[in-house]
């Protein structure tokens, strides 16, 4: 009974992530790859790589924007990287924010970039929290059913 309740919770979380546009069909593709391949750790692996990567890139961008003279090409290269990782994992909202961010880089607007950084950071933290909850629920579900491990 408890496992079923956890599964319902996980399903509700995932559907809210889709309906809010946090993740898109690419994320669904990754889940399907995991289920079809019988490799339970795959989504968790990719999500963890994404979160580590995004965290590192956001910190790099913040450091660059603090410099007295901002190297906008360098900022743009990092935003491009973050956009790529977001697209691969299906983190749609972060990806869209990155696309707007790149416009501010091309305009060489420090204020615009700082604003975009705040938005991207916020979107990423929100997504990371949800991913973490998702992984915890999956672990709890697996603990009930060792065959899925």
């Amino acid at each position, binding site marked *: 009974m408890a496992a079923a309740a956890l599964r319902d919770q996980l399903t509700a979380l995932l559907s809210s992530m889709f309906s809010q546009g946090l993740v898109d069909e*690419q994320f669904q*593709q*990754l889940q*399907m*790859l995991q289920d*079809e*391949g019988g*490799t339970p750790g*795959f989504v968790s*692996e*990719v999500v963890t*790589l*994404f979160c580590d*990567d995004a965290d590192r890139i956001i910190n790099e961008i913040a450091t660059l924007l603090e410099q007295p003279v901002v190297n906008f090409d360098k900022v743009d290269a990092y935003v*491009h*990287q973050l*956009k*790529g*990782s977001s*697209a*691969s*994992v*299906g983190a749609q909202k972060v990806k869209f924010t990155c696309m707007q961010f790149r416009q501010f880089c091309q305009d060489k607007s420090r204020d615009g970039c700082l604003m975009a950084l705040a938005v991207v950071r916020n979107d990423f933290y929100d997504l990371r929290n949800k991913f973490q909850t998702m992984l915890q629920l999956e672990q709890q579900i697996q603990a009930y059913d060792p065959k899925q491990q």
Partner: protein
Amino acid sequence: MAAAAQAPAAAKVVVATSPRAGGGGGGGGDRKVVPVVVAAAAGDEAQSEMHVLAVDDSSVDRAVIAKILRSSKYRVTTVESATRALELLCLGLVPNVNMIITDYWMPGMTGYELLKRVKESSQLKEIPVVIMSSENVPNRISRCLEEGAEDFLLKPVRPSDVSRLCSRIR
């Protein structure tokens, strides 16, 4: 069909015994897949023998592309830079590579430069090279195809893109 005449007899025999060659053979007729076909065994086992070298500087993208390729029964080696890929290929440290799939834009050597180096090398030029990019830039795509790229995939790469490749490169 004219291209089939250029293929050695041995390759033609393998193609003829392959269950999927009859239906989808037309599209890949002009591709230089001869070494791949000769090296691999017939039928479904041919795919399990296929070895792909995947090159991408993003750890997330490496994990995703490797997973997609493995789910299509490819054997996969991943590396984080074009320089490292070229090193491994030239030193023969990853023998029997049937395909290289590389990101276009990477720091240091780009995927485009890797493609050119592979096609310039008498030892490596027969290996099909597939380029991936997140940006849909038409003249970038045509430049890669002119340099001999097998295909150009837009990121994020989908399992359906790889199954399409699978049916062509074998």
